[in-house]
C-alpha cells in the first residue's frame, strides 16, 4: 500500500524540505550568533540561549538557582519594574533550564522588540544578584521546584534524572533540579560567579528570534550587547565530553497517604558521540506506543502486546538527544510491581526483536513517523529554539545555515543497515535500570531479560 502512495510521499518530503529552506541563516554578529525565522505571525519571540545548563555547573544547584535569578533586579530596572513594564507591553517573560542550555525568552507583539531585547540583554549585563533577592525570591522558588520533583511527588521525572546520573556520571549526569539543601553550600555569590563565567563569553550565547526580521534583530542585539564579554572574556563554558556507563539503582518512594504516584521503572540505553545517530529517532517513533489516532491501541509492537496481555501498566518511549550523547529508554509505570515487571518485559522483548533490523513497510512507516515528528517540532517556537539553538551553539562558525534542514535530511539518509547496527550496539551496551516506588515489589533488571 505504501508503494502505491509513493508519489504522495515524495511530495510530502519535498514540501518539508522547501519549508526548511525558508529558515533563516545564522549571522555571526561580532561574535554573537543570531538566527531568526519570520513567518509573518502576529507575535514575535526572542530567546537568549546560553550554555548554562546543569552539565556546566560548578556546584550542584547553581544552574537551577541561576535560572530562578533571571528577571530579577538589574542596574536600571527592579524585578518589579521588569514585570510591570512587560505587562504594559503585553509580553511574557520566561526562563527554562535544560541539561545543556538556559533559555531566557520574551514573547511579545510585533513592534515591541526594542524594549524586550533591552530587558533580556540587561539580564546578561547588569543583573545585581542581590543577597536579599536570593533569599526572598530565588530560594523559595527553587525549593518549590525541588519539592514538586521528589521521588514520591514525581516518580517519572526522578527516574529519568537518576538514569542520567547512572548513564553519564558527571557533566551530563548532573541533575537540573538542585539538591534539597543546596543553599548551605551555594550562596548568591556562587550564583553570581557562575553567571559571570557564562555571560562573560560571547561564544556561550545564541540569540534566536521568531516572527522578527533578521536584520532588525541583529541591529538590536549588536547595540544592546556591545558591552558583553568586553575586555577580558571568560573562557567558553566547557564540560567533560560525555561517556556512557550504565548501571542499576532502586529508590524507595512512598507517599504519606499510601496512594502515591505509580510504581515506576526506567529502562535506558545510551550512546555517546556527536551528533546522536538519526536512527535512534526512527527507533523511538517505531516503538512508541502512542497511537496516531485517539482511542485506538496503535500499531507499535509494544502497544499491541500490552493490549493483548491486559497488563494494567503503561509504557512510554523516551528519546533524549544531546549535543554529544543520547539516552533512549522506556518509562514503565503501573499500579503494582508485578504489572510493571510484565510491561517492562514486553518493552525489552520488543526492543530486542527490533535490534535485528526493520524491513519493508514497517521501516517506511517508522521513518515517515520520525520525519513528521521532527518537522512538526520544528514548526513550534519551543522545538525550533531547542533544535536550532543547540546546533547554533555547537557549531563554531556562521556555517550553520543548513542546521535545521539537516535535522530532517538526516532522516532521509538513514538506511536499514545503519539502523540495525545502531540498535544492536545500543542493546549490547550495559543498560540503565532505575526503579522508583515500592522497591520490594518492583523487578530487578535481570528479571526483565536485560
Amino acid at each position: 500500500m505504501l508503494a502505491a502512495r509513493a508519489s504522495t510521499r515524495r511530495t510530502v518530503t519535498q514540501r518539508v524540505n522547501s519549508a526548511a529552506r525558508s529558515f533563516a541563516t545564522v549571522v555571526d554578529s561580532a561574535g554573537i550568533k543570531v538566527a531568526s525565522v519570520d513567518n509573518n505571525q502576529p507575535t514575535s519571540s526572542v530567546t537568549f540561549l546560553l550554555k548554562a545548563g546543569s552539565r556546566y555547573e560548578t556546584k550542584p544547584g547553581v544552574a537551577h538557582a541561576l535560572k530562578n535569578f533571571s528577571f530579577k533586579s538589574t542596574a536600571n530596572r527592579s524585578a518589579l519594574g521588569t514585570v510591570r513594564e512587560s505587562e504594559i507591553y503585553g509580553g511574557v517573560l520566561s526562563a527554562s533550564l535544560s541539561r545543556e542550555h538556559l533559555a531566557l525568552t520574551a514573547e511579545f507583539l510585533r513592534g515591541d522588540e526594542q524594549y524586550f531585547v533591552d530587558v533580556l540583554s540587561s539580564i546578561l549585563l547588569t543583573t545585581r544578584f542581590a543577597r536579599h533577592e536570593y533569599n526572598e525570591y530565588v530560594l523559595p522558588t527553587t525549593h518549590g521546584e525541588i519539592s514538586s520533583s521528589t521521588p514520591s511527588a514525581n516518580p517519572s521525572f526522578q527516574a529519568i534524572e537518576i538514569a542520567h546520573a547512572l548513564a553519564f556520571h558527571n557533566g551530563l549526569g548532573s541533575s537540573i533540579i538542585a539538591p534539597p539543601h543546596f543553599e548551605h553550600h551555594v550562596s548568591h555569590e556562587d550564583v553570581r560567579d557562575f553567571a559571570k563565567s557564562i555571560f562573560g563569553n560571547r561564544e556561550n550565547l545564541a540569540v534566536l528570534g521568531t516572527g522578527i526580521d533578521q536584520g532588525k534583530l541583529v541591529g538590536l542585539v549588536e547595540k544592546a550587547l556591545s558591552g558583553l564579554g568586553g575586555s577580558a572574556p571568560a573562557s567558553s563554558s566547557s564540560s567533560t565530553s560525555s561517556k556512557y556507563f550504565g548501571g542499576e539503582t532502586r529508590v524507595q518512594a512512598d507517599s504519606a497517604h499510601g496512594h502515591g504516584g505509580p510504581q515506576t521503572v526506567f529502562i535506558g540505553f545510551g550512546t555517546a558521540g556527536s551528533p546522536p545517530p538519526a536512527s535512534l529517532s526512527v527507533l523511538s517513533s517505531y516503538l512508541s506506543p502512542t497511537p496516531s489516532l485517539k482511542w485506538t491501541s496503535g500499531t507499535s509492537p509494544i502497544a499491541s502486546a500490552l493490549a493483548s496481555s491486559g497488563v494494567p501498566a503503561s509504557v512510554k518511549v523516551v528519546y533524549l538527544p544531546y549535543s554529544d550523547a543520547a539516552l533512549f529508554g522506556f518509562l514503565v509505570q503501573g499500579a503494582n510491581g508485578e504489572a510493571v515487571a510484565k510491561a517492562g518485559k514486553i518493552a525489552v522483548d520488543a526492543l530486542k526483536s527490533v535490534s535485528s533490523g526493520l524491513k519493508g513497510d514497517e521501516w517506511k512507516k517508522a521513518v515517515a513517523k520520525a520525519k513528521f515528528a521532527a518537522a512538526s517540532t520544528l514548526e513550534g517556537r519551543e522545538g525550533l529554539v531547542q533544535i536550532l539553538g543547540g546546533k547554533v551553539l555547537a557549531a563554531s562558525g556562521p556555517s550553520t545555515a543548513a542546521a535545521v534542514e539537516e535535522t530532517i535530511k538526516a532522516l532521509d539518509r538513514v538506511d536499514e543497515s545503519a539502523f540495525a547496527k545502531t540498535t544492536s550496539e545500543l542493546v549490547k551496551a550495559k543498560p540503565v535500570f532505575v526503579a522508583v516506588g515500592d522497591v520490594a515489589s518492583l523487578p530487578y533488571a535481570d528479571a526483565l531479560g536485560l
Partner: protein
Amino acid sequence: MATLAPKVLASKSLAAWIAPVAHWYTNLAGYRKYGLKYDDLVIEETEDALGRLTPRERFDRAYRMKRASQASVLHAPLEKADWTKPQEDVRYLRPHIAEVEKENAERTMWDTALVTRK
C-alpha cells in the same frame, strides 16, 4: 529623612566647626554607654529591612539589645570598655531601610501609573 549633613560635610571648614559639636551631642544622647549603635534605635525599621541583615549582623543586634535591657534593669551604664566606640557606630541598617522604602515607593508608582500610548 531631611538632613543637612551632606551639605555640612561637603564644606571642609563647616564640617571642622560642626563635627566636634555633633560628636559631643551624640555622646550626650547616651546610647553608646549602653553598648548600642545608632541604627539600633531607628524607628523606621521594618521586618523587610531587618530580614536583609546578614545572620551575623542580626545576632549582634539582638545581643546588643539584650545587654542594654539588662543594663537598664540595673539602672547603670555598662563598663567603659563595653561602650560603643565612635568608629563602631556605623549605619548598618539605614541602607536596607532606604532600599525597602524605595521598593515600596516604586510599587505605589506602578500601582497608580497612568499609561498612555505614544
